């Protein structure tokens, strides 16, 4: 998509836009992880501190989310490649 605009000024502009979008996506993903893992793992507000169980739960949640995101991305890329090569 980038290289169809051969003009270098436009390219710089496009890269800036894409960078901004990537940053936004990253932050969105972060916000999603925090929300999902919090609602799943922390349900006991009788104490302020994070218990070790909750800690482990959060660690698993983050890791699984990232792995899941990676796998979905891989499948999506495969699908796109299939469509493009047809």
């Amino acid at each position, binding site marked *: 998509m980038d290289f169809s605009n051969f003009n270098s000024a436009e390219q710089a502009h496009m890269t800036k836009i894409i960078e901004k979008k990537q940053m936004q996506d990253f932050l969105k993903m972060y916000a999603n992880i925090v929300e999902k893992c919090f609602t799943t793992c922390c349900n006991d507000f009788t104490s302020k501190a994070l218990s070790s169980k909750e800690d482990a739960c959060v660690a698993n949640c983050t890791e699984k989310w990232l*792995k*899941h995101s*990676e*796998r979905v991305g*891989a499948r999506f*890329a*495969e699908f*796109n*490649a*299939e469509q*493009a*090569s047809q």
Partner: protein
Amino acid sequence: MVVHNVEPTPKPPPARVSGVKTVLRYTGIPPSWLDKRPKLPSRNWLIFLTASATILGYGVYDRRECKRIQDEYIEKVQSLSEDPLNPLDVSRKVTVYGAKWPGDEDHQQALKYFRKYVKPILVAAAVDFDMYSGKKLGDIATRIAEDVRLRRRLDAGIDEDPIQKKVLPTYMDPEERRKRELEGGIVLIGRPTFKEFMAGLKKGWSSGLQKVDGEEILAQELEDDHYFDEVDDDMLAPASKLSYSPIFTMSSQALQQKRATPEDTTPDVAPPQSIPQLPPLLLVPFSNRIGFTQIPIMIWEWFNKRRLVQSGAEAAYSLVLANSRPISVPSGVPSTSEPSEQLLSDSTSSAEHPTEASPPSDLGDLDFDLDKERLFKKSLYKIPEEVEQARKEYYEKLPARLATARALARGTREWTKDEVENPPPTEVELRAERMKREQEWRFNVASWNRVKGDTPVEWDERFRDALRVFSKPPSDASPAPSSEQ
């Protein structure tokens, strides 16, 4: 005068109440109910209740057994799905082919059987699958032949993976893909699928590497027929005759140019002597009853679905455990005739009815599910005849339509009112229609002849080392958790 009995008959002593009645008589229940004896319902009621209870009970028993059997097999394989897998890894994958059962309008029946009886076990064991259905008879064979051809081209280095696939993080080069395929498997539902599969395999491994355009070949054949020849008409002036033949040649040239594919510069390679190992085959028995007279049997089968569940689950279990053995076919089996003719040829053998008492064949694995072939409708055996009939009728009507088309195109005759509203097909359209019909007829007849009851399964000696079949695992085998990388 009425004589009153002075002494009334003494009342019988009050009956002794015993047991539950002593308590129940104060509850408000009508006392006559407390004295009733239990009684069987009437004869008709008994008949009705027995009949319905039997039927219902048998149905409920069958469904519960189905559930129990399926759960038993699912439990056996569940542990395999718990293995961890890296995000960019892929699980084991099998390919499922389900051809159309001859005579059935619904081509999905084989795959429905797969989805209902085999798939739950595969899903529980986390085995991935790709399903391909044959929309008409012969589709699976063409698909397999094409796949084999493309695979051969890839292996020979003629074709390459497209660049979009190579840049993917999950890209696997051909050797890895092959290894992964061999770990997977091929699932064939029913004997027609098996026949089509073997036919396609044979064709793929016995033909050249170039893409064969069936239309071109057919067009060449049809040119030799004289249906579209110019008719020597006295009314035509010689000069106009000359001017019309270029149109004749131009139209056929134009058609050929449309069909022309880019130059195929692949060298003409002879088919190889030995075939590389193929993924193991899972032969799933499947039958499809069609017809009004089959309805009582269908009802009985509906009450006995546990047998289907058992056979489907067993097949899936043997696939999950990957217990395979080389295909066992006795050594004297002849290789069947040249397949490249068979897939497109129009072998108009006379309608052979299925032999009622076929000699007991002993072809080992090639006899898979042989007894189900007698379920094919007898009317299907008339397909070659019917096609011949249709062809004859078509060619009888063709000259008239051709003459009309030509006359209208040349302007030798005025358009009638009907023709203005519904324009009859032009010559080009007639040619195209004829081509399409010939293709259909030949394809249908060839596919039916391949699948019908008297045709044996295609076999080639090269397959002996290349084919393996999933077999029932020994009863003490249990799915060991495989260590995925």
